[in-house]
C-alpha cells in the first residue's frame, strides 16, 4: 500500500451528511424533479379545468373536419375550402418548406458572393459588401419584409399597366405572372432519370476515389457526372416526345392571362429572407476563408499545384469545415424566420395552422403544440445532419 499513515480501520471518514457532495446532489435533483413534476401537473390540471369551463373538447378529432376557408397559395398540394384541417396543416408545412428551400437557395448564392466580395482587394467592391452586410444585419427582418411588401411591391403598377419582364413574365401589384411548365404524360420519368443520374454519379465518384487511392489513376468524374445528370433527363425528355412545355402569360386589357401567378407575399418573403440571411452567410464565408492559413496556399504552390487546384483541393475543403456548421444553423434560422410570413398573411404553417385554423377551432393546445413540434423536428433533423457532417469532416488528429 502506498498510503501507510491512513487509519486502516473500517470506519469511513466522518462527514456530515449535508456536506457529502453525493448526498447533496441527489437531494437537489430530487427537489428539482419534484418541482418540475408539480409545475407540469398543475399546468395540465389548469388547462383541463379551463378547457372544460370554456366548453372546448380536447383531442385531435378536429383534424378530420372540414376547414371551410380557402387559401390563395398551394403550389403542389390540392386544397379547397372543403379540405380537412389536417390538409391545412400539410399545405402550411408545404408552403413553409417551399419558402425555406427557395430562400436558402438564393441566400447561399448571395451570401457566398458577398462574403468573397468582402475580402476582395478591390476597395469599392469590399466597401459595398461591407455596407450591405451591416445594413442588412442591423435592421429587423420583420421591417425588411414590410419594406418589400408594403413599400416596394404594393406600389407597383396596377394589373393593366403590368411591367413586361420579357421571358420572366409580367410584374404588377398582384404579383409576378411567370411562365408555367405544363407537363404531359411521361414527365415524371424525367425526374426519375435525374435521380438515377445522381445516384450513378455518386457511385462512380466513390469508386473513382477508391481506385485513385489504390492505383493513383484518375477518372474524369466531373464530366461523366455532368453527362449523366444532364444527359439522362435530356435523353428521356426527347424519347418521351418532349412532355414538358412552357405556357407564357399574355398581356390582356385586364392584366396578364395564363401562366403561373406568384403572389406578392411570396416574392416579398423570398427577397427579405434571402437578402437578410445572405448578410449572415457572407460573414460566415468570410470567417471561413480567413480561417485557412496563408501557409496552406504557399504549401500548395510549393507542391506544384495550380491556383485552381489549390482552391479546389486545399482551400475550399478546409474553409468548408469552418463554414458548414454555422451555415446550417443559418439555414435553420431562415426556416424559423419564415414563420414571419404570418405578418403579411402568406399562408405558411404558422399563419394558416397556428393562426386561421386556431381561430376557427379554438384548439390552442393541440395546434400550437403540433406547430412547435414541427419546427422542433425540423431543427433536430438539421442538427443531426450537422453533427453527422461535423463528425465526418472534422480533423483526424493523431
Amino acid at each position: 500500500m502506498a498510503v501507510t499513515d491512513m487509519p486502516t480501520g473500517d470506519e469511513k471518514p466522518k462527514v456530515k451528511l449535508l456536506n457529502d457532495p453525493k448526498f447533496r446532489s441527489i437531494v437537489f435533483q430530487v427537489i428539482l424533479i419534484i418541482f418540475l413534476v408539480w409545475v407540469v401537473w398543475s399546468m395540465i390540471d389548469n388547462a383541463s379545468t379551463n378547457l372544460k369551463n370554456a366548453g372546448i373538447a380536447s383531442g385531435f378529432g378536429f383534424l378530420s373536419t372540414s376547414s371551410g376557408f380557402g387559401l390563395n397559395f398551394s403550389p403542389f398540394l390540392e386544397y379547397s375550402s372543403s379540405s380537412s384541417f389536417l390538409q391545412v396543416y400539410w399545405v402550411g408545412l408545404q408552403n413553409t418548406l417551399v419558402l425555406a428551400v427557395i430562400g436558402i437557395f438564393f441566400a447561399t448564392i448571395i451570401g457566398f458572393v458577398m462574403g468573397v466580395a468582402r475580402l476582395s482587394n478591390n476597395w469599392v467592391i469590399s466597401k459595398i459588401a461591407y455596407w450591405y452586410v451591416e445594413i442588412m444585419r442591423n435592421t429587423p427582418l420583420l421591417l425588411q419584409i414590410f419594406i418589400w411588401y408594403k413599400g416596394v411591391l404594393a406600389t407597383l403598377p396596377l394589373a393593366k399597366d403590368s411591367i413586361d419582364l420579357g421571358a420572366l413574365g409580367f410584374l404588377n401589384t398582384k404579383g409576378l405572372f411567370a411562365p408555367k411548365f405544363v407537363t404531359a404524360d411521361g414527365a415524371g420519368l424525367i425526374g426519375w432519370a435525374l435521380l438515377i443520374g445522381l445516384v450513378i454519379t455518386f457511385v462512380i465518384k466513390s469508386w473513382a476515389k477508391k481506385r485513385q487511392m489504390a492505383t493513383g489513376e484518375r477518372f474524369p468524374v466531373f464530366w461523366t457526372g455532368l453527362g449523366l445528370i444532364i444527359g439522362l433527363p435530356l435523353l428521356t425528355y426527347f424519347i418521351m416526345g418532349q412532355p414538358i412545355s412552357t405556357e407564357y402569360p399574355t398581356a390582356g386589357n385586364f392584366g396578364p392571362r395564363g401562366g403561373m401567378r406568384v403572389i406578392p407575399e411570396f416574392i416579398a418573403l423570398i427577397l427579405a429572407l434571402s437578402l437578410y440571411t445572405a448578410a449572415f452567410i457572407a460573414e460566415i464565408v468570410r470567417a471561413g476563408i480567413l480561417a485557412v492559413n496563408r501557409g496552406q496556399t504557399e504549401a500548395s504552390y510549393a507542391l506544384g499545384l495550380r491556383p485552381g487546384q489549390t482552391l479546389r483541393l486545399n482551400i475550399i475543403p478546409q474553409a468548408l469545415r469552418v463554414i458548414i456548421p454555422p451555415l446550417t444553423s443559418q439555414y435553420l434560422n431562415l426556416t424559423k424566420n419564415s414563420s414571419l410570413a404570418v405578418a403579411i398573411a402568406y399562408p405558411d404553417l404558422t399563419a394558416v395552422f397556428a393562426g386561421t385554423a386556431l381561430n376557427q377551432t379554438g384548439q390552442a393546445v393541440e395546434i400550437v403544440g403540433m406547430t412547435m413540434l414541427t419546427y422542433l423536428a425540423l431543427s433536430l433533423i438539421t442538427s443531426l445532419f450537422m453533427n453527422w457532417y461535423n463528425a465526418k469532416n472534422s480533423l483526424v488528429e493523431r
Partner: protein
Amino acid sequence: MADIDSQTSMNRAETGALEVAFVRKELAPAMAPPVNESGVLGWMRKNLFLNIPNTILTLFAGYILYLTIPGLIQWIFTDAVWSGDDRLACATVAQGGELPEGWKAACWPYVGAYLKLFIYGRYPDAELWRVNITLFMFFAGLIPLLMPNLPFKRENLIFMLGIFPVASFVLLSGGNLGLNGFLLPEAIMEPSTLKFWVDFLILTLVICGLVAAYMKGTESDPIPAVVGTAIGMAVLALVLFVMSVDFGLEPVETDRWGGFVMTLVIAVTGIVAALPLGILLALGRRSNMPAVSLFSVIFIEFWRGIPLITVLFMSSVMLPLFLPDGVTFDKLLRALIGVALFSSAYMAEVVRGGLQALPKGQYEGAMAVGLNYWQSMRLIIMPQALKIVIPGIVNTFIGLFKDTTLVSIIGLLDFLGMINLSHSDATWATPVQAMTSYVFCAFIFFLFCFGMSRYSIYMEDRLNTSHR
C-alpha cells in the same frame, strides 16, 4: 576591368577618408516616390485598378453605385417633401396634390406629425414627463456605465440594476401595486396590504429558519448566512414597498404604452432577465447531475428549436390556459416572459461557449485554492468566460432588440406596430407613406444596432489580454 574596380574600392576602404574628386561627400537627395506607388494615384492603382479584372470590377461597382446612390439621395433629401400639413403635401397631381406625375420620394412631415406616437405610443400627454424622466435615467445611467474610464462603476451598476428598474416601473405604470397577501388562508385574515406584509414576515422567518438549519447541518456558523438572508429579504421588501406605495401618480395601463419606448422596455427587460437565466442554464448544462443537465439541455433545445413568433403565440393564446382560474397576466408581461425565456436559451449557448473555451486548469486551480462551486464560478470562471463571449452576448442582444418588432404581430403597439397603425390614418395616406415610415424605422434600428456592434468590437479590443 572587374579586377581593377574591386581593387580600387578595396584601397578606398582601407585608406578611409581619402579625398577623391569624383566621390560624393553628401547623400544624394531622396527622389519623390513614383507617382504610381504613392498618394491618391498609388492608392487607386493598388485598390481599384490593380489589373484588368480588378478594373472591370471597379467599373461594375461604380455603375451599381451610379444606379443606386443618386436615386437614394434624391429620395431621402433633394426630392423629398419637408413640410406640409396633410397628405396633399405629398400627393401628385393625379392624387389630388401639386407634385409632378411620377414623383416618388420621402414624405417627412408625416413622420414629424407622428413622431410623438412613434416614440411614446398612446401614453397620455399629461403624463409624458414620466416617460421622459425614465428615458433620461436610462441613458444617464447607461452611458457612464459603458465608458470604461469613468469611476463609480459599482454604484452605477447598482443604480442600473437595482434602483432604475423599480423607479421606471413606478414611473411608467404609476406604481401602487395591489398586494393582497399570498400565504395565510382567508379565514384567518382578510386580504389586504397588511396581510401581505404579515405573510411576507412569516415567509422571511421560515426562510431564515431553513437557512439556519442547513448551516447547522453542515457544521458552519449560521449567523452570517442568516443575517445575509434577512438583508436580502429586507431589500426585496423595500422594492415591493416602493412598488406598492401610492405616489399619487395616475395609473397608466400597459395597453397605452407603445412606440419606441415599448421596444426599449421589452429589449432591456428581456436581456436583463436573459443573462442570469442563461448563465444558470449554461452551468446546468455542464453540471455533473444528470437530472439538472438533462433538464437544461431539453429547455435550451426546445426554445432554440422553435421560432419566436410561435413563442409569442403560445404566450398570448396558451399561457392563460395553463394558469389557474382568476390569475391573469398583462399582455405585455406575457410577451416579456416569452421573450425572456426565448433569449435565455440563446444566451445559455453563448455562455456555454465561453465556459468551454476556458482551459481546464482554471477549474482545477479554483478547486485547488479551496473555493467551493459557486465561489469558483463567481470569482474565477465567470469573469473570464463572460469576457470571452462579450461579442456573443452583444450579438444576442442585437438579435433580441431586432426581434422585439415581432410583438407587433400579437397586437402590441411597439415601434413597428405603431408605424403600421399610422398607415390607417387617412390624413397622411399616400403611396409613399409606407416607405417613408419604414425607412425612418430602419434608420433608428440601424443606429442602435450598429452602435452596439461597434461598441462590442471596442470592448473586445480593450479586454483582450491576448491570452484566453
